[in-house]
């Protein structure tokens, strides 16, 4: 029989114990009677011999070794009984807790999915990423450096410790079947799926011989593209797609949720079939490399090996690889953008939970003290201190667990809207769901809470001076607990202040940012990415002609006032940071200051409504062969020259001339400044002031060297100013820009107004959440203050009765209670303000656009809190003032 059985069969065991002892007594009595004693005396002797039957039973129960469990069981039933008796209290406690734990667990569910879960590949610990590294490369600005395709092939061939797979982005247009459509194409090495350990859903992966120049065109579809374009048709394998004027046979379908760099993409083609120049030189680095450690090789070995191969390459290809080394890191999801925000939110929501705990602790404490006599009685009857503490903790653990279970259920519902409302796309959102880690977290939090708010009553459980407690009414022992109660109220207020100030700062930030000038006239302007027909991409003249036609045709669409092209649309993802120098003695690249470069057509300034400060913007005379010109913004003018009248001066911008292959021999890298324009908030309303690189310059697309035109065209967008509602022009513009082959597409259409709104979405989202948290905190703290004051005032009824009897007026009595409350509130505000200063720093560091200005936030929020606190204390104060001295004194 194990302990579990024993616990379940407790009743049987008790019966048997009783029976066994009775048998003993009867035998002994019978024996004694046989020895000649009279029956009464015999019974007495027998009982004496055994000792007190209850005591023996108690010792036997102890001997069973399941004592703690039985006690626990008893405590549990006791706790349930008390909760049933005080259903209102229990319901409120459980609900408060459920809210706190639910919100915390929901936050943790998101953190677990986004930050903690390993990548969804088999054996993810053996996967690594390989990056290039040069001393002049600033990874914080540009992100990690990728590899050139040729370097990648060499690593793949030479490495003994790694299986390397690579992929690169090469979006294109699918022109058949169906309407021409832009697709997010990823070119992958044939082994990508096998290296990651992901089997295809249907069909097969690419063969090594297909991963070669000139091999038969084959394509693998992503699951979502297959669903979208082929409606998940089971007979898709063997059909074909037309991209870049080639017909690709579909050989496989990737499983649902297969992602490279966090996105599903649309189609995959073999990387070896791309024969464009940038794939055949070591100078450009388009390939992202993910690799799996071979069995028995370690990260240290891999690093050593890659270093060796890197040195070897640097020696062999001095002009491209000198100074280039290779870095191997464990493969991790890229979630840097949201990490601090998520932890910040978890911190905020834990504060709400802490207030809830403090509330419950003070309620339980009040209850425990009113039960002082009962507990004192139990101590007098022999209950040990540990036993009482355990009972108190069991009660609060039951509350905690009930709240926790409800909270986890709440979290299971709440995390979905949270993920859905996340501004932009939450990385790894697909990984966010309940799992065992979330359950363990939720349960651990609820037990911890139960322990936290059970501790105070447990410690306060009477164990000394029991006689004093029993002799007196419960009222006289309150003194010590008053300090604890005050402590709870003060900490609740302090925490509420932190959340209120944070919300206040965010609100102020949002107000300030919304009022900022973007530098653009956003009304009736929209931006869209555009892909030219693949048929024109081969020749630079054709590309230029195609763009000219796009602009001409676009201009003719009714409702369009002006149309222009630009590679980097302000406030949208994507930018081009380029080094410049104001004189001919240009230092090495890493010493040059950076500016944001935008390649535009002449009407850009008109479309965007950017202010021209001096000089001119581009016109049709700025083209191939004419003097290279740029227009800079006022920030760049200030940074480069320290003044604004700089028209006619020159800037040296080397990477705009020689950075790319086939750029041709540019005679000079100097550009004449022909105009100065107003600053545009490229990084959005929130980010721009703090951005490292703010200076901007514009250069004409028409003057772009031949070698750039194709790559630039692939990144190009159009911006359109309309006379009417932008959406009404969209479809006719769409039709008009199809091109002669009918396969030109525009996609990702956004109005500039939306882009500006979206650039504030993170701040708005955080303000909403912090507003909710702060509101909850305020509510909980008010309830807490009310509860504690009501309780303490109630304890002071006789005292107040005496005061009234001695002639205190109602106002004096009210003031007595309010003063008490005000004391706690002010102390809480003091402590909270210090903590809020620290929180404000954290917020400033975590959230873009927040300025460290807590004073104004204090000025707004502290009166709100003090008012709420006084409101909460008013009712107890009023009740105190109505105390009738006669009844009060009789009560004692």
């Amino acid at each position, binding site marked *: 029989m194990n302990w579990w059985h024993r616990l379940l069969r407790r009743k049987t065991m008790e019966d048997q114990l009783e*029976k*066994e002892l009775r048998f003993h007594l009867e*035998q002994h009595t019978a024996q004694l009677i046989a020895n000649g004693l009279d029956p009464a005396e015999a019974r007495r002797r027998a009982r004496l011999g055994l000792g007190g039957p209850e005591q023996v039973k108690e010792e036997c129960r102890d001997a069973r070794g399941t004592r703690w469990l039985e006690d626990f069981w008893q405590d549990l039933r006791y706790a349930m009984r008390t909760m049933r008796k005080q259903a209102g209290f229990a319901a409120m406690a459980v609900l408060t807790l459920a809210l706190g734990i639910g919100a915390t667990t929901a936050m943790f569910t998101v953190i677990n999915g986004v930050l903690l879960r390993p990548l969804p590949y088999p054996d993810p610990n053996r996967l690594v990423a390989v990056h290039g590294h040069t001393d002049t490369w600033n990874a914080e600005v540009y992100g990690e450096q990728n590899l050139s395709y040729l370097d990648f092939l060499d690593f793949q061939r030479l490495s003994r410790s790694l299986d390397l797979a690579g992929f690169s982005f090469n979006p294109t247009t699918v022109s058949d079947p169906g309407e021409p459509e832009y697709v997010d194409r990823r070119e992958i090495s044939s082994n990508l799926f096998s290296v990651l350990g992901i089997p295809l859903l249907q069909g097969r992966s690419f063969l090594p011989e297909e991963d070669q120049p000139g091999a038969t065109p084959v394509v693998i579809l992503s699951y979502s593209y297959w669903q979208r374009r082929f409606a998940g048709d089971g007979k898709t394998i063997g059909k074909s797609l037309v991209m870049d004027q080639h017909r690709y046979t579909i050989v496989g379908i990737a499983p649902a949720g297969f992602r490279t760099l966090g996105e599903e993409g649309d189609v995959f083609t073999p990387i070896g079939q791309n024969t464009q120049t940038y794939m055949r030189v070591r100078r450009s680095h388009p390939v992202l490399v993910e690799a799996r450690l071979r069995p028995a090789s370690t990260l240290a070995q891999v690093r050593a090996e890659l270093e060796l191969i890197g040195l070897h390459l640097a020696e062999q290809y001095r002009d491209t690889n000198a100074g280039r080394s290779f870095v191997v890191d464990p493969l991790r999801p890229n979630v840097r953008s949201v990490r601090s925000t998520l932890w910040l939110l978890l911190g905020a929501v834990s504060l709400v939970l802490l207030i809830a705990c403090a509330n419950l602790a003070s309620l339980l404490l009040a209850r425990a003290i009113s039960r002082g006599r009962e507990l004192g009685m139990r101590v007098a009857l022999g209950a040990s201190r540990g036993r009482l503490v355990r009972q108190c903790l069991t009660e609060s653990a039951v509350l905690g667990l009930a709240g926790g279970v409800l909270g986890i259920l709440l979290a299971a519902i709440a995390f979905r809207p949270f993920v859905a409302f996340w501004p932009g796309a939450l990385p790894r959102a697909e990984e966010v769901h309940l799992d065992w880690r979330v359950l363990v977290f939720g349960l651990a939090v609820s037990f911890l809470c139960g322990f936290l708010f059970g501790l105070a009553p447990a410690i306060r459980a009477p164990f000394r001076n029991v006689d004093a407690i029993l002799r007196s009414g419960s009222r006289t022992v309150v003194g010590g607990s008053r300090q604890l109660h005050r402590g709870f109220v003060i900490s609740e207020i302090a925490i509420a202040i932190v959340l209120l100030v944070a919300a206040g700062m965010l609100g102020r930030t949002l107000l300030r940012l919304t009022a900022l000038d973007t530098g653009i006239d956003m009304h009736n302007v929209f931006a869209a990415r555009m892909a030219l027909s693949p048929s024109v991409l081969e020749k630079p003249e054709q590309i230029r002609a195609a763009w000219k036609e796009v602009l001409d045709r676009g201009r003719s669409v009714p409702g369009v006032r002006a149309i222009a092209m630009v590679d980097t649309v302000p406030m949208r993802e994507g930018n081009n940071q380029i080094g410049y120098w104001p004189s001919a003695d240009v230092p090495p690249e890493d010493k040059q200051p950076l500016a944001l470069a935008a390649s535009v057509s002449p009407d850009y300034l008109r479309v965007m409504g950017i202010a021209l400060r001096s000089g001119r913007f581009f016109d049709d005379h700025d083209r191939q062969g004419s003097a290279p010109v740029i227009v800079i913004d006022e920030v760049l003018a200030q940074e480069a020259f320290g003044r604004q009248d700089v028209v006619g001066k020159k800037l040296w911008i080397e990477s705009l001339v020689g950075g790319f292959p086939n750029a041709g021999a540019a005679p000079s890298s100097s550009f004449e400044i022909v105009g100065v324009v107003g600053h545009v908030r490229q990084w959005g309303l929130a980010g721009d002031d703090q951005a490292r690189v703010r200076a901007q310059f514009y250069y004409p697309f028409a003057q772009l060297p031949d070698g750039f035109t194709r790559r630039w065209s692939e990144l190009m967008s159009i911006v359109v100013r309309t006379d009417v509602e932008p959406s009404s022009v969209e479809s006719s513009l769409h039709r008009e820009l199809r091109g002669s082959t009918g396969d030109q597409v525009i996609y990702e259409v956004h109005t500039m107004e939306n882009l500006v709104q979206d650039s504030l979405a993170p701040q708005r989202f955080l303000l909403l959440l912090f507003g909710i948290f702060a509101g909850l905190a305020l509510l909980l703290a008010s309830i807490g203050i009310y509860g504690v004051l009501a309780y303490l005032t109630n304890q002071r009824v006789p005292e107040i009765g005496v005061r009234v009897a001695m002639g205190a007026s109602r106002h004096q009595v009210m003031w007595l209670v309010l003063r008490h409350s005000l004391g706690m509130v002010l102390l809480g505000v003091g402590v909270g303000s210090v903590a809020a200063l620290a929180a404000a720093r954290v917020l400033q560091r975590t959230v873009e656009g927040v300025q460290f200005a807590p004073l104004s936030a204090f000025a707004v929020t502290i009166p709100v809190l003090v008012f709420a606190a006084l409101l909460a204390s008013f009712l107890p104060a009023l009740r105190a003032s109505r105390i009738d001295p006669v009844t009060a004194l009789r009560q004692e």
Partner: protein
Amino acid sequence: MTTKSDLPQGTLDLLILKVVALGPVHGYAIAQRLEQVSQHVVQVPQGSLYPALHRLENRGILAAEWEETDTGREAKFYRLTKKGRAQLETEAADWQRLTEAIGLILKISNGDAP
């Protein structure tokens, strides 16, 4: 009746095991047997007999079953388990060694070399 001695610490278990080793027996009989065999020298504290029995049962040294006595009443009969038999042997041997050692020490008269 001679003077009665209290049991040395820890010996009650050993005595119980020894008595139970003779065959299944109920609690009252164990108490009786212990007093008789020790010729009433050993005072068996009946109050601690039952907790000891329950503890030994709990540790798997004794097993118990409800059976009828000769007089047709139901009683809880204890018997040794396999583990209990081993326990008895080691404890008995330990006790033997201890008493011998104590006997030797007591034999030393003042000034004698051991």
